[in-house]
């Protein structure tokens, strides 16, 4: 009973986390240890086991906040890695430039006159080879930098799966990242964001649904009359979006996060 309930809870968290499998597994293991430790403590105090499970889960707090915070920490890590790479590039460029500068002829005024021409020839070839090395190093650093950028962008490439159910007939639409529109000026998100994406879907003849998802995986969902974005029938935000019969919302990994049909 307890294991089942914990596992359902942990699976839900893992599903919502936009992290690698390894990171999700590590977080699940850590949270599982906490839940089991709390369960043991409550059971030791004589609390009924099923009640202890409920207490342990309820004490954890809001799942959406937990997921949002973990994702923000991950973004922080990515930003730090990005900054480190950028600073590494700058430091390497500065070091090589400095190296080139101290070997230039103007800084070698004390060189003997009779060997100056030969020395200049040597120095020129040395500078050339160092410049080549600098170019090669820059290219290497540029590549690693774009790899970091690419991996960050990959993570931010969200897709929106919109699923609708009307009169027993299912309609599903997957909006691929390339089809999502940028919404950099949209102000309704809870968390700060750099980019946000929009997807839309028509339901039947008279209802449109628009969804926005930002890079922190905060969602804003809005439903209105077809062709009239200002006629808002429903607006929900943050984490799981629910509250209307035909609204089921998913993430970009092909995993539908289904919400209950509570409006019926």
């Amino acid at each position, binding site marked *: 009973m307890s294991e089942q309930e914990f596992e359902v809870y942990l699976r839900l968290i893992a599903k919502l986390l936009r992290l690698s499998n390894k990171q999700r597994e590590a977080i699940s293991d850590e949270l599982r*240890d906490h839940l089991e430790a709390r369960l043991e403590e409550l059971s030791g105090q004589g609390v009924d086991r099923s009640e202890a499970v409920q207490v342990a889960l309820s004490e954890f707090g809001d799942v959406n906040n937990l997921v949002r915070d973990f994702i*923000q*920490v991950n973004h922080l890590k990515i930003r730090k890695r990005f900054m480190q790479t950028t600073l590494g590039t700058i430091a390497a460029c500065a070091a090589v430039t400095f190296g080139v500068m101290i070997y230039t002829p103007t800084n070698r005024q004390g060189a003997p006159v009779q060997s100056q021409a030969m020395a200049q020839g040597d120095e020129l070839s040395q500078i050339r080879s160092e410049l080549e090395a600098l170019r090669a190093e820059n290219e290497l650093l540029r590549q690693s930098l774009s790899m970091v950028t690419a991996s960050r962008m990959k993570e931010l490439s969200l897709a929106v799966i919109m699923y609708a159910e009307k009169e027993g007939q299912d309609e599903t639409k997957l909006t691929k990242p390339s089809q999502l529109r940028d919404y950099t000026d949209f102000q309704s998100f809870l968390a700060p964001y750099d980019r946000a994406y929009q997807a839309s879907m028509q339901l039947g003849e008279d209802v449109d649904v628009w969804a926005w998802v930002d890079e922190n995986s905060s969602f804003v969902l809005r439903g209105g009359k077809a062709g009239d974005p200002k006629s808002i029938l429903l607006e929900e935000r943050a984490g799981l979006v629910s509250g209307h019969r035909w609204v089921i919302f998913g993430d970009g990994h092909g995993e539908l996060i289904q919400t209950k049909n509570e409006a019926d």
Partner: protein
Amino acid sequence: MAESFERELMRGSLDLMVLSVLADGANYGYLIQKRVRDAGGDMIKLQAGTLYPLLHRLEADGAIKSKWDHSTGRKRKWYELTAAGRRRVRDQAVQWDRYAACIRQLLTPALAALPAN
């Protein structure tokens, strides 16, 4: 009187609380939470959902480091302070001490002047 400290009051001090617990030695999430709660006499509501992202953030900041222990048959993640974390605890603790003294100096006469509920 409120049953727990207001969230706004806690904001900004949770990091230091957690780091202070770890200043006593390595520890894991559940016991860190317990230590913080015990210290506050249940006035501090530190939910696990708040604690774990906080621990991960402190680790990303380089203030703490972690390692997994499998010896008890259960996977358990232990945290401990890094050298940077120790410096941070010391610096912030001094600041907080001064801040608390300042607040106390202002509050004592204010409380004396105000009627008790």
